C-alpha cells in the first residue's frame, strides 16, 4: 500500500524539467547519462549528440527560500565527443556519451571523465573572472599602432576583474585501448587511477598517463564462438582502493582484488542467485542479465538491476541477495512482446540515496520506482511534464494487470514502451533525484 502521506515516507515534488517540449525528438538530443558531482552542486548530463551539459545549483536561492532551493541552471555546455570513422574496420564510432564520472575536487576547477564507445576524455571546467588589459603596440581593440616611435615607456598588462566565464577544456584523451564498446568508467578511491570496461575487458588507467593502460580483466575466449557472457558494468569500491566489481550478462557479479594479482581473471568472490526452476523460460537468461551495478556509499552493499528487479547484495554473502525488489513484475507475462520490440535489451540504471536508505531505478511509460529499504515500502512515480506544476507533490501511480481497472490505475496494455527512464542519479547528500526521460531531464525533491 502506498500510504505515503502519513507514514513518514518521503513525498516527492516536481522541481524542474529541462529540454524541449516538442513531440519530435531529435536523436542527438536524447540524454544518455546523468551524474551528480561529489557535493551535488553540479549535475552533468551527456547526450547522443556527444554533448555534455553541466548544471549548477542556484547559488542565490540556496537556503533562503525553501520552495526555490535546489533549482539547477545551465553552467556550461561543451561538445565532448565527435562522430568518428574507423577506416581499418569500416566502423562508425558514435559520439554518444555512455558515461560521465566526476573526479574528486582538487582545486577551484572541476574535472570529469566522459566516454563514448571507444575513447575516455578528461575535461576541466573552470571559471575565469579576471582578464589582463593593456598592450604596448596595440590598443585594446587589437589594432596595431602605426607610429612605433611613440613608445616612450613599457607597459606591463594589468589584471582587471571581468564577467564570469566558464570554460571547458579537454585535458587528456585516453584512447586506443578498447576493441569493444565501453560500458562503464569508474574512478578509484586512490584518486589516481580509473577503470574502463568494455564487453570483454577491463582496463586500468592512471589519470595522468594516456599512452598506457593495464588490462586487469580479460574474459575473451580464445575462440569467439565459445563466448557465453559479456561484461555489462564495472565499478570500484568507494573506499577500498583494491576492490572492484563487474557484472555480466549471465546475471553474476564478480568481486576482484587487485592486490593478489596483476591480472584479475580469478575473482575473489562471485555473487550469483540460483535460478528458480519455476520461472524458467526462453527469456530467463536475457532478463537475468545485469544492466547496472553500484556500490552503496558505505561500501558494504551492492545494488544490481536486472530486467525485472532490483537486488541488494551484502558483500559478505555471495549465495543470494539480501533484498530483492520487483520493479515491474507485471511485465513478466509480456516478455514475448518486449522481445519482439527489443525492449527486453534495455539497460536500466539504478541508484542509491545518499544515506543508502532508498534505492531507485527506472521503468517504462516514464515511470520510476523508489524503494525504502527500512520500511520496505515502495512507490511508482511518473515523470510527465504535462501534468506537473512546480513544487507539486507527485501522485503515486499504479498499474493494474487484471481486467478490472480501478480509478487512477493504468492498464499494463496502455503503457508506452517508447517512454523509458534508463538513466537515474540521486544527489549525494540530499533527497533530490534526477532522471533522463528521452530528451528531457527531470529533477524531483523528496520532502519528509
Amino acid at each position: 500500500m502506498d500510504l505515503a502521506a502519513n507514514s513518514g515516507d518521503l513525498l516527492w515534488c516536481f522541481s524542474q524539467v529541462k529540454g524541449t517540449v516538442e513531440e519530435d525528438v531529435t536523436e542527438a538530443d536524447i540524454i544518455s547519462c546523468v551524474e551528480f558531482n561529489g557535493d551535488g552542486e553540479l549535475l552533468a548530463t551527456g547526450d547522443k549528440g556527444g554533448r555534455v551539459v553541466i548544471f549548477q545549483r542556484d547559488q542565490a536561492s540556496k537556503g533562503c527560500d525553501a520552495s526555490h532551493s535546489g533549482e539547477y541552471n545551465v553552467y556550461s555546455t561543451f561538445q565532448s565527443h565527435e562522430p568518428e570513422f574507423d577506416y581499418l574496420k569500416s566502423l562508425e564510432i558514435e559520439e554518444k556519451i555512455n558515461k560521465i564520472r566526476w573526479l574528486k575536487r582538487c582545486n577551484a576547477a572541476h574535472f570529469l571523465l566522459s566516454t563514448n564507445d571507444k575513447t575516455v576524455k578528461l575535461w576541466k571546467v573552470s571559471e575565469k573572472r579576471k582578464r589582463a588589459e593593456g598592450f604596448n603596440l596595440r590598443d585594446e581593440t587589437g589594432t596595431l599602432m602605426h607610429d612605433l616611435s611613440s613608445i616612450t615607456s613599457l607597459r606591463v598588462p594589468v589584471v582587471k576583474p571581468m564577467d564570469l566565464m566558464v570554460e571547458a577544456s579537454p585535458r587528456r584523451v585516453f584512447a586506443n585501448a578498447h576493441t569493444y564498446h565501453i560500458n562503464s568508467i569508474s574512478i578509484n578511491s586512490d584518486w589516481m587511477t580509473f577503470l574502463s570496461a568494455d564487453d570483454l575487458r577491463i582496463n586500468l588507467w592512471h589519470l595522468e598517463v594516456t599512452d598506457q593502460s593495464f588490462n586487469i580483466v580479460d574474459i575473451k575466449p580464445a575462440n569467439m564462438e565459445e563466448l557465453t557472457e559479456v561484461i555489462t558494468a564495472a565499478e570500484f569500491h568507494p573506499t577500498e582502493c583494491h576492490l572492484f566489481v563487474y557484472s555480466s550478462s549471465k546475471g553474476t557479479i564478480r568481486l576482484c582484488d587487485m592486490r593478489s594479482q596483476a591480472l584479475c581473471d580469478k575473482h575473489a568472490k562471485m555473487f550469483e542467485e540460483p535460478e528458480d526452476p519455476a520461472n524458467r523460460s526462453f527469456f530467463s537468461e536475457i532478463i537475468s542479465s545485469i544492466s547496472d551495478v553500484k556500490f552503496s556509499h558505505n561500501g558494504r552493499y551492492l545494488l544490481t538491476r536486472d530486467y525485472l528487479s532490483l537486488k541488494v547484495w551484502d558483500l559478505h554473502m555471495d549465495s543470494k541477495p539480501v533484498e530483492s525488489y520487483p520493479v515491474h513484475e507485471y511485465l513478466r507475462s509480456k516478455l514475448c512482446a518486449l522481445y519482439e520490440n527489443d525492449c527486453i535489451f534495455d539497460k536500466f540504471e539504478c541508484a542509491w540515496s545518499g544515506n543508502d536508505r532508498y534505492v531507485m531505478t527506472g521503468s517504462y511509460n516514464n515511470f520510476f520506482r523508489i524503494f525504502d529499504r527500512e520500511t520496505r515500502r515502495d512507490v511508482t512515480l511518473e515523470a510527465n511534464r504535462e501534468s506537473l506544476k512546480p513544487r507539486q507533490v507527485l501522485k503515486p501511480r499504479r498499474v493494474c494487470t487484471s481486467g478490472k481497472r480501478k480509478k487512477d490505475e493504468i492498464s499494463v496494455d496502455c503503457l508506452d514502451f517508447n517512454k523509458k527512464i534508463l538513466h537515474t542519479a540521486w544527489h549525494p547528500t540530499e533527497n533530490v533525484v534526477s532522471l533522463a526521460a528521452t530528451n528531457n531531464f527531470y529533477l524531483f525533491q523528496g520532502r519528509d
Partner: protein
Amino acid sequence: MAGHGADESLYPIAVLIDELRNEDLQQRLNSIKKLSTIAVALGVERTRKELLPFLTDTIYDEDEVLLALAEQLGSFTPLVGGPEFVYTLLPPLETLANVEETMVRDKAVESLCKVANQHSAGNIEKHFVPLVRRLSGGDWFTSRTSACGLFSVAYPKVSTTMKGELRQLYRTLCGDETPMVRRAAASRLGEFSKVIDAEHVKSDIVPLYVSLSTDEQDSVRQLAVEACCSIASQMKNDEAEKYLMVMLREAANDKSWRVRYVVADKIVELQKSLGSEITKKDLVPAYHNLLKDVEAEVRAAAASKLKVFCQNLTSDKENIIMNHIMPCLKELAIDPSMHVKSALASTVMSLSTAVGKDKTMEHILPLFLILLKDENADVRLNIIANLDSVSEVIGAKQLSQSVLPAIIELTQDPKWRVRLGIIEFMPQIAGQLGAEFFEEKLSAHFMAWLLDHVFAIREAAIVSLKKIIQKFGVDWGQANIIPKLLQLSHNSNYLYRLTCLSGISTLSGVMNKDLTQKLLFPTVLSMASDPVANVRFNVAKTIKKLGPVLDQSVLQGQVRPCLQKLKTDVDVDVQFFAVEAQEVLKMS
C-alpha cells in the same frame, strides 16, 4: 624621432610583453621563455611591482606556458633585486603550486626550493615558512601535496621552535584525508628525514613511517617502502633493525603485489642502507620469497636485481647464493611468464663469477641452456647478450663442448634480432676458440649470414668479419674470407652484390694497401657496369672510400675513366655520387 635611441631599444621588449598575451600558444611560450629579458628591461622595481603581480594572475594559461613560467621564476632572484627581495617571487610560485597539473606543480616546488636557498635565515622564517603553512593548510589537495616538497629546504634554516612546528605540520600532512597528500608526504619523507637530526628521526619520522606503512591505500604503502631506504641510511644498522624492520618485513609480505613489487625493485637500495647483518638475516629470506612470489611482475622485478644483489653480498656470499637463491632459479627458468624468464636471462650469467667454474658448470649452465632454447626471442636474446661473462668463467673448451651446439642452433633462429645477437658475439667466441675451429665450425654460417634476407644481419656479419680478421690477421683473411666475399659480386640478386660492395668498403679498413689494390679494387671496378643503378652508385661510393689508398697509376688509368663514365650515367643518383667521388679524389 630616429635620434631618440631609448625608444628603439624598447621596441623588441614591447613586442615581447605584448606576446605574453598572444592568442597563439607558441608565441606566448616563446615570450615566457624570454621573461628574463623583459625583467631586465623593466628593472628590478617594476619587475617586483608590475610584472610579478601580472604573472601571479596568469594561471589560466596552458600547461606548457605555466611549466615554462615555473621554471623561469626559479632563477629570477637577481632580476627582482637579489636575496633581499627574493620573497617577492613566492606569490606567483605559490599560485603555480596550486594548479592541478602535476608537472607544473612539481616544477613550481622545484623553483620554490631553489629560491628558498637564496632567502636569508630571517626571511625564511618571515616569508617562506608562512607559505609552507598556507600551502599545508590549503583547501585543495593540490596545495597540500606541493607543501610536502618544501619542508626539507626550510627545516635546516629555522629556529628550534619553528623546527618543531614544521615537524608537527608534516605529521598532519601524513595523516591527511586524501590519498594524494599522503602519497606526496610518503614520497618526500626520505628527503625530509635527511635534514633532521638523529634523535628526531627516531622520535618523529619513524612513527610517520610506521603509520604510512600501514596505510589502507596500496599506493601509499608502496611509497613508504621507498622512504624506508632513505631513513635507514640515516641510522645505524642496529637502530634500523629496531625501528624499521618490523614494517619492512610486513611490506615484503604485503597482501598487495604492488607493494611487494616495490620491495623487490628496491631490494638493492635496501641492502645497501641496511647493512650485511640485516641483509643476511632478513633480506635474503625476503628476496627468496620475492623470487617465488605468486605474481609474475614481482618475480620479474626480483630476478632483474639478481646480479647486483648477489654482487653486493659481502659475508657468506657463496653459501647464500647456493643455498638460498640458486634453488629458486631453476623454477624461474621455466616460469610461465616471459618477462620473468627474460629478466632472469639478463642477470643469471653474472652469478658465474661469484660461484666459480665448477658450480657454474653444475648449476648455471643447465639454466643457461634451458633459457637459450626458450620459445621467446627476448629471453634467448638476453642470454646471448651475456655470453661473454660465462665464457670467461668456464673457458673456451667447455664452451665449445657444452654451449656451442645450442648457439649454432640459434644461428638459424627465425627472429633476426636473435641472429644479430649471435653474430655480434661471434668475434669474441672466435677469438677464444681459435682460427682452426672457426673455419671448421663457424665460417659456413658467416657465408649464410652474408646472404641473409635481413639487411641488418648482412651488415652485422661484415662488421663481425672485420673484427675476426683483426684477430686472426690479414693473411688468414685473404685466404679464408675475401675469396668468398668477392664471389658475391656475381650473385644474381643485386642486394647481395651490394653486400659485396659494403663488405669491400668495410674490410678495406683492415687490409693492407697492396691487397686492397690487387684483390678488392678490381672487383669494384668490374661492377661499375652493373645493370642496377643502385649497385652502380655504390660502386662510386666505394671508389671514393678506397681511392686514397690506391696508387696514382691506378687512379689515373682506371678510376678516372670509370668515374667519367658513371658521371654520364642515365641515373641521376649515380651521376651525383660519381661527381662526389671525383671531388673527393680531386679528379674534377
